[in-house]
């Protein structure tokens, strides 16, 4: 993997001037992912923050071929592009030695929810592409509505806390595990807060043949109700509480990475979930006597998931 110095000399493939918010984790994640390889990339993006903010006509921040089709079909669209690439190669209309990688983006709404079927279909068919879910834990583009990636207890505009409701009911869906169940060659969780972790994983994903997947926690200060300067800290704390463990699944084998691995080995501290929750206004209402059980149950669930992951990683 190239050094940071080398990476800094590579041409940016997402240009500045786009309209994503200050402190948005998504744009940083995309830049890191596009830097991770020098191979040509064709990208596709589901409807969402990333798409609307980077392509408002007559501007486009994409220095590579890019298509937005609709909300739920990023994976289906990229599978069409990738298959056409093979079709035209077969007919000699694209040189046999031309290597192009295919990259699909979707937010958590476009991936955990409405695009899950298209993603599952594309993974099963075995197209050679990388799917990146930039997970900011709600429908941020439409104004912070809950998705199946929203953590339990979070206040969103469609899971508001109120006199009788404690915010979002139900735990976050474990999308990475669902994807892993498709037996694809490479899947990983990361966050741009650990930039080398994400760049390394993006490089592996993009240079592996077959379907590969990255689930990237992309902090959203706007929707999470936090200061824009805090996005790196938010990402790191999610990892250090083991809410968002860094791991990869290579040909079915689980590998913990970085600080996640050190926590598993007892070499780093596993911080309490409360520390992550306290950083964000969307959880403010949980710090009351009435809602204390929500935090407790979230911690119990997190611990259970963490033990399960460690067990899988030690197999």
């Amino acid at each position: 993997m190239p050094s940071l110095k080398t990476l800094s000399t590579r041409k940016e493939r997402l240009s500045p001037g786009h309209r994503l918010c200050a402190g948005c984790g998504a744009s940083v994640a995309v830049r890191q992912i596009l830097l991770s390889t020098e191979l040509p990339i064709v990208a596709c993006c589901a409807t969402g923050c990333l798409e609307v903010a980077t392509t408002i006509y007559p501007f486009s921040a994409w220095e590579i071929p890019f298509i937005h089709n609709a909300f739920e079909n990023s994976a289906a669209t990229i599978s069409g592009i990738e298959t056409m690439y093979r079709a035209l190669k077969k007919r000699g209309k694209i040189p046999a030695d031309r290597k192009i990688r295919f990259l699909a983006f979707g937010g958590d709404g476009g991936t955990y929810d409405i695009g899950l079927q298209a993603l599952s279909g594309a993974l099963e068919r075995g197209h050679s592409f990388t799917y990146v879910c930039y997970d900011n834990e709600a429908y941020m583009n439409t104004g912070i509505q809950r998705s199946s990636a929203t953590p339990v207890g979070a206040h969103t505009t469609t899971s508001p806390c109120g006199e009788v409701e404690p915010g979002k009911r139900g735990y976050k869906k474990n999308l990475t595990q669902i994807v892993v169940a498709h037996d694809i060659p490479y899947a990983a969780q990361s966050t741009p807060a650990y930039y080398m972790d994400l760049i390394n994983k993006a490089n592996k994903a993009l240079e592996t043949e077959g379907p590969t997947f990255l689930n990237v926690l992309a902090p959203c200060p706007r929707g999470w109700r936090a200061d824009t300067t805090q996005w790196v800290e938010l990402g790191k704390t999610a990892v250090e509480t083991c809410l968002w463990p860094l791991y990869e699944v290579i040909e079915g084998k689980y590998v913990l990475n970085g600080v996640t691995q050190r926590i598993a080995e007892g070499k780093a501290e596993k911080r309490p979930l409360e520390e992550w929750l306290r950083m964000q206004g969307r959880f403010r209402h949980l710090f009351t006597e009435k809602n204390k059980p929500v935090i407790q149950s979230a911690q119990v669930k997190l611990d259970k998931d963490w033990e399960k992951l460690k067990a899988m990683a030690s197999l």
Partner: protein
Amino acid sequence: MMEMPKILPLNGDDAAAFAMKQIDPDLVAAYPITPQTELMQSFSQFVADGEVQTELIVAESEHSALSACVGACAAGGRVMTATSSQGLAYMWEILYIAAGYRLPIVMNVINRTLSGPINIHCDHSDTMGARDSGWLQLYGENPQEAYDNTIQAVRIAEHKDLRLPVMCCMDGFITSHAVERVDLLDDNVVKDFVGEFVPTHPLLDIEHPVTYGPLDLYDYFFEHKMQEIDAMSRAERVVREVSNKYGKMAGRSYGLMEPYGMEDAETAIVVLSSTAGTTRATAKEMRQAGRKVGMIKVRCFRPFPKDELAGLLADVKAVAVLDRSDGLGAYGAPVFNEVRNALYDRDQGPEVVNYVYGLGGRDIGQPDIAGVYADLADIAATGKVKQRVRYLGVRE
């Protein structure tokens, strides 16, 4: 090697699949649905046997099938698909995107009733709902036309003045599953006719990156939509040109519509697809009995050839439009609305009445058509319309 037979007994699905085999598109993406299934089964076998070079995506839904077509066509190659009914409904939002991105995708739609309740047989509720999506719509009467339309549709869609997707419609089961004799062209003739796909701004041209599908708000969207509307306004000419070329090459001529007996007709029926055959047979018998009746089969419903149709109907006293779908809550069904609208600009036009028939695959026979002509004769004689919109063949 055996010489390829020029005539084969084929049903509509197999005729369209055979055309697709000869076209040999770069990519086909589809999902099975009755009564389109036979078409995709046959085509899948062509792929499995190496009779085509086509890459096949058997998607997990129609939504993904058309989404893959959009990606693939934008990537820079020739793309085809096929569906019916619920499948077309599921593709809905992507229909508009395919047309809006000016992607010349060709899709056979085997007409089937939209649920509910569920019904697998023919009516036109599926494609009529998609009539304003920016796709051209050709309606074929029989397996021969299913074959011919599929080949022509490629040239029409990809025409440089157009670049719009095309639907080739045929009646579910009535056409798709009924075997008839189909005259086939030689592979090379079809290959020459459709020519090479010419990509414009392909995604796979990595040296010239383009952005497809940007966010296009009130400051630009209208102008972009206007370009699509302008393209559609050229469609009538393009369909005519391609159909003429095909006619010269294949010996089977097609226009935007097919009139019968209209030279002296006093009453006429306007109808689409397989029922045109039933109507023509009825009109023929009545004309042999000395009755001045005629009929027009509308082949091209989008774009709607209003001037040609109005011209043909100018001297008729009464016209019945047969619609195989209803426009619930509207004043009459879709084809009726178009026909009556087209005649409104004439100083003296015929009375136009509407018969909604055949919903959910309800059979229609020559006695039904003869009944319509009898009603028209009454209107022509009295000048009075008792009921403008009627339902034909439904039990009271």
